[in-house]
Structures are given as structure tokens and as C-alpha cells.
């Protein structure tokens, strides 16, 4: 059992427990969200002692160099002194430029950062309402000078962040951006490789960004985007994507629903998204696959596309973890 010293108090971290769990159990306030090492909300800093390697996985080198670590994945083997980092250094402020309704429960939020922001379409950032409440969202836009950062935000009933965005946030308001992180993005260098992108719900956001990125970088291989929703009304941006299909002969959009409705457009496929994907591309050997959205479904798709022949190194997945 190791001890951590935080705010001049000693806490015992028992085996199998994380620094974050321990501090929260003792009533300390530590920003946190996914608790799975992804969102980077629980960044803390070691001031004395050795930083456990595992707690720095996925962090930028500049963060590692400052002894920053993720409290949720930190199980120290020796005693360390820790503090909350000066959060102002990690975040950039941004102003809301546009809020557009995409469907009954999804809005598009466009924000402009106070300084140039480098990222790849498809990566995610954590958006902060204040010092404590933050949530991770994928970037649906491309990093271009003077352009906005775009997100698709689904309203979660009683969600501390999404309800605020849907009901209170207005054009001109300020929020804060931390990140980016994640390796689910388009990499140039193999323009002829076929791409298969599968997403459910707002898992469309990163894929929308990746598709546009690939097309703008003159990708010549086939690009197939499968978007799954429960009902046809959940297929937001369908018109936009159909137009894109008209414009680029190598891009195909495949909307897919679990529950069909009478009079829905014939282009919408009814059925299990996993089956739809494998009917479309029975042998994805040599393809690059991007999977985003519901955690369980992404895991299933990851396994099925691999078994069907896609190389593990060519599968990029971004399961949405709910706090």
C-alpha cells in the first residue's frame, strides 16, 4: 500500500484502488469524468516521487515532462506528493459562434478558440463549462485558420453539461477547451486504401470530420460511411451527407436504422449495423476501419471486422464512455 500526500494530508491508496477513487472517497474535489484514462479530466501533477508509467499513457510529451498524470489510472507503488495542476495552462478559452439544431436531441455547437488550435478531425477534446464540469466530445470539423471547432452534442436528460449547452448556452458565451486526444483520425500517405467508417448516434461526429478530411486530402480509395440510429429521425445530417455523395464518386453514405418506419426513404437500411457493415464489405482485408459510438457496439464491431480480415493495426475505434 502506498501513500499520497495532497493538500498536506496523507491518504492511503489501497491495492486495486486508484488515486482518484481514494481522494473522492475522502471527500476531496477532483475534476473527473470517464474514469477510464480517456478524457484526461482528472489530470494531476506529481511534485515529489516517481510517476507511475501507466498513469501517463496517452498524455502529450509536454504533459509527461511536467510530471502530469491521470489520477483515475494511477495506482502508485511508492509514496508520492501530488497537487492539482494550474488548470489555466491546460485549457484554452473559446466563444460560441453558432448553435444549430440537427435533430430532436442533437445540436451542432460551433466555437472559436481565443488562440489557434491544432488538432485532427476525429480527435476529441474536453469542453469545460467551469472548473468542475467538463465532458469529452469529438471534433467534427477540420483544423483551419479562422474556422470554428464543431461538435455534435446530444441532450442527455439531466446531463450537467449537455442540458446546459442545449438550454442555456448562447452565441457569444465563453467555455474552455482541453486536449486534443485520441488517434481516431485520417492519416495521409495511402490515398488508395479503402475506408470503412461506422458510427452510431453522435458517433457520426468524428466520422463526419474524418470523411471531409479524407476527401479534402484527395483520398482516391472508396469511402463508405455507415451511420446507425434507432429511428429514421436519429439520422441527422442525412441530407448533407447525400449531397456529399453526389459530389464525390468515391464516397458512399449508408444510413441504417434498428426500427423502420412506413414511408421512410428507400435508401435507409433496416437491420443490425454489424450485419449491414459485413454485408457491404464482407472481407475488409486491406481496408482501414473507423468505429465510433456506443461502447458495446464498437467493441463488437472491432471484433467482427477483425475476424472478417481487417488488420488490427488498421482498426481505429473510439468507444463513447459515459460518465
Amino acid at each position, binding site marked *: 500500500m502506498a501513500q499520497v500526500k495532497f493538500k498536506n494530508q496523507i491518504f492511503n491508496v489501497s491495492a486495486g484502488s486508484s488515486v482518484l477513487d481514494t481522494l473522492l472517497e475522502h471527500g476531496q474535489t477532483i475534476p473527473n469524468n470517464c474514469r477510464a484514462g480517456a478524457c484526461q479530466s482528472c489530470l494531476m501533477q506529481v511534485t515529489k516521487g516517481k510517476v507511475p508509467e501507466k498513469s501517463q499513457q496517452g498524455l502529450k510529451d509536454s504533459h509527461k515532462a511536467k510530471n502530469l498524470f491521470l489520477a483515475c489510472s494511477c495506482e502508485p507503488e511508492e509514496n508520492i506528493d501530488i497537487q492539482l495542476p494550474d488548470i489555466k495552462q491546460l485549457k484554452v478559452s473559446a466563444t460560441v459562434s453558432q448553435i444549430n439544431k440537427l435533430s430532436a436531441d442533437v445540436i451542432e455547437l460551433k466555437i472559436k478558440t481565443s488562440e489557434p488550435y491544432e488538432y485532427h478531425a476525429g480527435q476529441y477534446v474536453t469542453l469545460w463549462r467551469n472548473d468542475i464540469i467538463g465532458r469529452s466530445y469529438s471534433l467534427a470539423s477540420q483544423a483551419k485558420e479562422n474556422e470554428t471547432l464543431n461538435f455534435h452534442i446530444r441532450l442527455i436528460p439531466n446531463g450537467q453539461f449537455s442540458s446546459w449547452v442545449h438550454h442555456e448556452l448562447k452565441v457569444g458565451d465563453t467555455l474552455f477547451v482541453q486536449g486534443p486526444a485520441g488517434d481516431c483520425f485520417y492519416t495521409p500517405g495511402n490515398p488508395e486504401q479503402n475506408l470503412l467508417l461506422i458510427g452510431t448516434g453522435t458517433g457520426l461526429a468524428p466520422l463526419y470530420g474524418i470523411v471531409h478530411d479524407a476527401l479534402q486530402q484527395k483520398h482516391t480509395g472508396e469511402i463508405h460511411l455507415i451511420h446507425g440510429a434507432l429511428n429514421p429521425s436519429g439520422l441527422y445530417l442525412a441530407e448533407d451527407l447525400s449531397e456529399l455523395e453526389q459530389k464525390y464518386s468515391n464516397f458512399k453514405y449508408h444510413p441504417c436504422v434498428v426500427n423502420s418506419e412506413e414511408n421512410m426513404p428507400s435508401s435507409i437500411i433496416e437491420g443490425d449495423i454489424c450485419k449491414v457493415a459485413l454485408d457491404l464489405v464482407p472481407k475488409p482485408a486491406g481496408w482501414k476501419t473507423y468505429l465510433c459510438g456506443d461502447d458495446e457496439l464498437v*467493441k463488437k464491431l*472491432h*471484433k467482427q471486422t*477483425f*475476424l472478417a480480415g481487417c488488420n*488490427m493495426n488498421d*482498426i481505429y*475505434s473510439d468507444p463513447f464512455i459515459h460518465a
Partner: protein
Amino acid sequence: MASLYERLGGEAAVNAAVDIFYRKVLTDDRVNEFFEGVDMDAQIAKQKGFLTMVFGGPNNYTGKDMREGHKHLVAKGLNDSHVDAIIELLGGTLKELGVADADIQEVADIANSVRDDVLNR
């Protein structure tokens, strides 16, 4: 003479073998129940570690790690027949990659050397 690991092709051989091997494991009904619900990315990293070891490459496995890592599977019924199946799938993978029979046998011998630790006995 070059070591087994060098003859097989080192890290490149591990990378070439891991997808083929893991795909065989996941589709083999004798053993795939032990891999249900595991995180694929984490599992691929573990499979690479395993292949590096049985290819005679650098590794830091100890008997204790082997025991701890498989304890929950032994509780679920992991036994000799499953170890046999894994070694068979390993052999099939190497055969597909054109590895000589003598080298395949050497890999199987290394895998067999950790059998008792894996089965916690």
C-alpha cells in the same frame, strides 16, 4: 548460429503472426470462450508479449506473472486440452508463415515449458 528469435525474424515476425494467431484463437470454439468480452487492443498487446516469449525473444515474464494472469481462467475451467489447442493454433500460424517444422517444434517446447505455471499447478 542465430537464435530462434532471430531465425523467425524478430519483432517483424511477431507483428506478422499476431493477427493470424489471434484470429484463429477467436474463431476456435475450443478456446474462444476464454477471450469473450476482453478489450481487443489490450489483448493484442498481450498476444504480442506471448508470441515474443514463445519465439525465444526478450521478455520479462516470470512464473508468478503466468500464474496470476491465468488464475481467473483456471477457475473457469482452463486445462491441458486448452493449452494443447493454443499450441496447435500457434503451429498452424507459423506454418502459414512458412516457418520450418524444427523451429515450430522449438516454439512449442517453449510454450510447453510454461504449461504448469499457466495452469497454476
